[in-house]
């Protein structure tokens, strides 16, 4: 369902290289409703999962090294790192939930902690989180800086806000995509149903 990713893998597998036209500009119409946006990204996520699963065996055979590297990178991001983010969200929510419950029942112990009195490690982890958010905003700012007129103060604040909204939506999208891909193969469903993205007039 992501024929662009799929064809890139096929080209790399055949030993050919893909040229980068770094000066080219591309425009696309973004869906204007959350529902349309969600299902477009879900289709993309599902398609990428399908490509990675399909190419996973190439990690262990005599494939082109570029295919191996790309499959390794995608596998890490899509399976390992995504799982880590979901785990850390669960840990975070469990702890916040317990903290709220403690207001009513002070006897409760926080489930995930390296010792509640360990202020130092708490500070390190908080600083860690702050650095992560800064890295995220930096990534977006650098991308904006390459395009004339994009890197404005308002846009950078938007980037910060997107960490807590847009990025969180993608956790839901990726979980939905994994479940959908798994159910497709378990139930023998055809997972390639194309959800057409609705277009809008200007």
């Amino acid at each position, binding site marked *: 369902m992501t024929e662009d990713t799929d064809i890139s893998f096929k080209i790399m597998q055949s030993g050919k290289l893909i040229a980068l036209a*770094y*000066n080219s500009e591309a*425009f696309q*119409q973004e869906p204007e409703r959350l529902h349309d946006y969600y299902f477009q990204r879900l289709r993309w996520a599902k398609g990428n999962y399908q490509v990675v699963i399909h190419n996973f065996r190439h990690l262990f055979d005599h494939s082109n090294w570029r295919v191996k590297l790309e499959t390794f*990178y995608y596998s*890490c*991001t899509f399976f*390992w*790192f995504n*799982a*880590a*983010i979901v*785990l*850390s969200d669960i*840990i975070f929510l469990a702890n916040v939930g317990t903290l709220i419950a403690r207001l009513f029942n002070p006897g409760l112990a926080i*489930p*995930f*902690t*390296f010792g509640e009195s360990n202020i130092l490690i708490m500070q390190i*982890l908080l600083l860690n989180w702050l650095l*992560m958010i800064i*890295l995220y905003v*930096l*990534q977006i700012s*650098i991308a904006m800086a*390459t395009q004339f007129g994009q890197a404005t103060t308002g846009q950078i604040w938007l980037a910060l806000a997107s960490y807590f909204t847009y990025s969180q939506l993608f956790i839901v999208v990726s979980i939905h995509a994994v479940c959908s891909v798994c159910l497709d193969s378990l139930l023998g469903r055809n997972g390639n149903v194309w959800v*057409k993205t609705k*277009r*809008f*007039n200007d």
Partner: protein
Amino acid sequence: MVQETLMIITLVSIWLSLCMSIVTLSGATDFWLAHSTKRVTITPLSRYPMITIVVPAHNEEVVIAQTTRAILDMNYPADRVELLLFADIRRSSSPNGSSTARSGTSSRSVGFPARTSSSSVSLSRGSGAGATGS
């Protein structure tokens, strides 16, 4: 103990993912710094082969005129471009979008392939398309 192991695994994984993003980010920054100041000059090609662009345009009638215009405005002679728009099983029966595209780009070669049977698609080429793409 289980909780602590889980936390450590999660933390180490996230740190590794951060390392990975820092590597890609510095690579991209390095590339951009080297290339952003380069002046790009576009020299004419020695020959302009006929190229065919295929656009899957299923239910794209709202934006297809814009898309067509943008494709034909590319930095490539429009008379060397053969554009094929595929609009299969349209949701609405009125060919509004197609006629807009047709009237806006009458001098260019825009093909409107017609579906003939369930398995084969015949390509009707536009007037400007002389040779087939190599």
